[in-house]
């Protein structure tokens, strides 16, 4: 294997991985963030208590979270085909099951971050005559920003790990390259270089995430 052939392949796989990871992460947050907020505000003692709704939502999220991604991928083939048009072979075909697996995870991450906001601060906001929407948008979310960023870095790396399983659905990317073009044909330099790139990616996201968290947090000075 010579490097002049390998590098363009690696870069192409990297591009596919990044597109899969970030588009899935973005869509997962669009769904998971509001759900995380709902989990916190509708619980007993929350600002808009709705215990039955909260329990049902919690059960659904736990159900989705407990299915391993590789099983979810297979289970979803018919749904994916119906929604995306095709079930295997293209990036968009992998994004759909990624989102279905990741948004419940994101919802729980967001819930955890919002939980860290001191209840006294929310009470103070209530005492000042804030509406519930003002409490969510001007108090809970802004106060949780450092923790939300930290959670996002963890969610993105988790989704990145899921994309490595994309090969099972005929998707591309670094993980697929390491398995299909590396492991399966015993081409270890491909396997190792694609894997190393994945490791580097996780490192970069983690370092960037914690750096941003630290910079944005005004609570500890």
């Amino acid at each position: 294997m010579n490097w002049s052939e390998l590098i363009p392949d690696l870069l192409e796989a990297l591009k596919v991985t990044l597109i899969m990871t970030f588009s899935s992460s973005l869509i997962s947050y669009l769904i998971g963030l509001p759900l995380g907020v709902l989990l916190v505000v509708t619980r007993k003692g929350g600002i808009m208590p709705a215990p039955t709704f909260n329990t049902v939502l919690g059960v659904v999220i736990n159900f989705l979270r407990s299915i391993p991604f590789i099983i979810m991928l297979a289970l979803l083939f018919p749904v994916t085909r119906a929604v995306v048009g095709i079930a295997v072979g293209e990036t968009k075909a992998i994004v759909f099951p990624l989102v279905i697996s990741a948004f419940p995870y994101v919802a729980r991450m967001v819930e955890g971050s919002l939980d860290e906001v001191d209840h006294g601060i929310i009470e103070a906001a209530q005492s000042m005559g804030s509406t519930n929407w003002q409490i969510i948008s001007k108090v809970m979310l802004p106060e949780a920003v450092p923790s939300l960023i930290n959670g996002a870095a963890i969610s993105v790396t988790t989704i990145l790990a899921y994309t490595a399983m994309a090969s099972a659905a005929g998707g591309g990317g670094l993980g697929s390259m390491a398995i299909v073009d590396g492991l399966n044909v015993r081409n270890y330099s491909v396997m190792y270089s694609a894997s190393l790139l994945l490791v580097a990616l996780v490192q970069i996201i983690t370092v960037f995430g914690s750096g941003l968290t630290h910079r944005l947090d005004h609570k500890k000075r």
Partner: protein
Amino acid sequence: MSEQPIIQIKNLKKIYAVPGGEVVALNGINLSIEKGQIYGIIGMSGAGKSTLIRCMNKLDTPTEGQVFIGGKNVLTMSKKELLQTRRRTAMIFQQFNLLMQKTVARNVRYPLEIAGVNEEKANKRVTELLRIVGLEEKANAFPAQLSGGQKQRVAIARALASDPDVLLCDEATSALDPMTTQSILSLLQKINQEMGITVVLITHEMAVIRQICTRVAILDGGKLVEEGSVDDVFMHTKSAAGRRLFGILPEQEEIPQQAALRIVFDASAAGQPMISKLIKDMDMDINILSADIRQLNGKSFGQMMIARPDSPVDVKRVMDYLRNEGLTVEEVHAS
């Protein structure tokens, strides 16, 4: 004086369900707070005082009873009206509860933002409020960079932003050292006097009541056991809880080694040689156990412990004699 009380509470009850039963936090509270007062509610921890103040702006919902602010029932008003009432009934807390990710200025601006005040006007008001609490130079600092006293000043500025009629203080000085407590109390007094804002404060510290309150209510076991002007309640303490809080002052919790008589007298009586007269008139020996004079709302009050005479007849003679002189006397049992 016929003006309607700014806060009126009628037959307030709060019962919490707990595993295996219920806890009665408030048990039939009635009280009226007039406009312009600094009204202190004192009690030991667990007396229900925090629940009481939180019922005033419906942060807690009572099980029974009514709460009127400016004549309107807080518990039955619409959501919109409640938000408006809360903006006129500001609150500060023991733990300050500032937005930790926002600067001091943004914290103070928050009530103006949610009320939709335009930015330019709001910023002007923020500067003015920070000047009132003496923190102009901290406008761009974050709460984590401030001391406890400074944080409470920010909380006070924030509370004043909505131009309230009432300021509710939930143990506002309990997390502060004595020096800082003094300065926060002075600030509350200034706000009361210069802006005419009615202040309601709850505390477990007698010193806080003594320093700034005009009226006081004593809560014990969810009941209001005593209520009146601070001077009156101090001079004629009737309840056991009141005696715990006033009689034997918490900062020198002294229980005599032997049975004693406690004599409380005001500044005018303190000028007379009362004990000397007692000794001569009664022709008996008096053993003074302790004595001290302290300031209460700018007046001096004295308190003295004398050993209780051995015979019950003498005890009655001494007590009657002193009461005739206009003093408050009571028996204090030994520890």
